[in-house]
């Protein structure tokens, strides 16, 4: 199905929603639709229920981390240097803020078509990471959104049971972020080996250093 047609059909039926086509240059040709957070649940419900679309099977849910980048650019400016006006090259950096993407791959069991790729985007990577949960629309997002929360740190509002899935409850960081660093604070556990070694050394010194 043509993504442009789906986009205009949604825009006609879900008032106020802002959609954006995200092109995919790969030979797979799987372009995606970027949803806005406010209307995501309404759009998802429409995609599931509309008679011509019927995307009732949410196959895959995952996150992507796009860290912020610093892009340096050189600009020439005229300045007065040593009393003379000269052309000077100035290097300036602009910071492009990072964000997290959440991607949904939809198929239709009834119409046997797909995939339709949906994306949602957070404001930044650490504090503005709240997105609406699509679990009320597709139950299959339940465990997968928990996994995205666990590994990427996206908070899904409206999720019935948002807990860590793979890491343990006391864990603090989100390992799939690109700037994640392995913790280096594993406690040193004393083992019986040390006790045995101490006894051996004591025995050796008593036996005359043999």
């Amino acid at each position: 199905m043509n993504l442009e047609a789906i986009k205009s059909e949604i825009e006609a039926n879900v008032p106020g929603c802002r959609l954006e086509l995200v092109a995919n240059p790969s030979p797979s040709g799987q372009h995606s639709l970027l949803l806005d957070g406010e209307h995501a649940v309404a759009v998802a419900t429409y995609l599931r229920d509309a008679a011509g679309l019927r995307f009732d099977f949410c196959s895959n849910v995952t996150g992507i981390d796009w860290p912020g980048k610093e892009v340096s650019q050189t600009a020439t400016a005229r300045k007065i240097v040593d009393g003379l006006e000269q052309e000077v090259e100035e290097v300036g950096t602009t910071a492009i803020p990072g964000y997290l993407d959440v991607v949904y791959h939809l198929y239709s069991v009834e119409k046997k078509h797909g995939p339709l790729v949906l994306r949602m985007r957070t404001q930044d990577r650490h504090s503005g990471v709240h997105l609406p949960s699509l679990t009320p629309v597709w139950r299959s997002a339940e465990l997968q959104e928990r996994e995205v929360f666990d590994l990427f740190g996206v908070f899904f509002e409206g999720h019935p049971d948002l807990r860590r899935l793979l890491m343990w409850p006391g864990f603090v960081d989100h390992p799939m972020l690109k700037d994640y660093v392995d913790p280096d604070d594993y406690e040193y556990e004393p083992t019986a080996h040390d006790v045995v070694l101490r006894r051996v050394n004591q025995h050796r010194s008593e036996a005359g250093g043999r």
Partner: protein
Amino acid sequence: MNIATVPPAPLDSEPVTEPSKEQLLEISMGPQHPSTHGVFRMKVVLDGERVVRLKPVFGYLHRNHEKIAESVTYLGSMPYTDRLDYMCSITNNWGYALAVEKLAGIEVPERAEYLRVICGELTRLQNHACLIGFLMQDMGSTGTPLMYAFREREKILDLFESLTGARMMCNYMRFGGCRVDLPAGWLDRAKKVIADFPRFLDEYERLLVSNEILMDRTQEVGVLSRELAVSAGISGPMARASGVDYDIRKVDHYSIYDRFTFRVPLGSHGDVYDRFMVRLLEMRESVGILQQATRAIPAGPIVDPKMKIRGFRPKPGEAYGRIESPKGELGFYLISDGSPNPYRYRVRPPSLINLTVLEDLCLGRNVADIVAILGSVDIVLGEVDR
């Protein structure tokens, strides 16, 4: 203190808490429980024998496969996909190869497609046979069905060993084809194994299908409705047992499945018995596909000659590729940024997503039914936890 010296509690002592009408007992099944098929834990709340609440706990086998794959080259994670669902390494290879081929636009030669279908369907045969064996073992039929299944699996693993060099960790697929061609005489041996397989299926069916204890334990147990199966993303034999007519081999027309005639068995009740029967019937269809494929396999190259093994860098973009693995829909989602390593690598694990409905299936059932229901879902923890 010696047990004999402990004074018994006085009989008229006050109970610590008021006895309520229903006394709930919270028990932990797993992670070291033989019937959980690995390190999987369920926190079960029981009222007597009846399940009131069941929360699965994941992650005991988590090693962040996705993060590891993002730090090595595309081909570097091919052997690691074997370890996802270690019962069916070849279909894991296939799913990953298919996704990369979509990402980079690689064609696969005809002979390689036949080799993939033959190995993939052999994998399905041994997975389904073993799963039924494990399910019976879980329900207490110690030994016999599982050993029958392992006897057949052994023959298929011998074929894999002589083809790929490994029995379970096959690492057989490459982007744009397969790693090695068939050794001399392999096809004749495979034909013999395939020709003998229906006799095992007849034997298995005679042993199990109308067994009264099996029917008692599995019929009307763990019923999954069609609507819930679709909504919860259930795929593979588990969805088809609930009457969802969705087989990716038929829907996506990937590889060369269009050339073979086979049917998609569907259940009508969605209970444990239907899941068991759907797998039995699927094995018969797989035998049919294998007979057609081994007859029609052409000569030719086994890998796309234009394919670069070293310095493989797909152009920037993304792709989602999926296959019908024995467990269900196995998908790989890849994003390339033009470098030799994938920018994002995601596995869509059928075992994990099929567990979404575990609590719904078990509520109101007895403890012993949990084991049968979990066995019929068909999970491998290497894939659930990744």
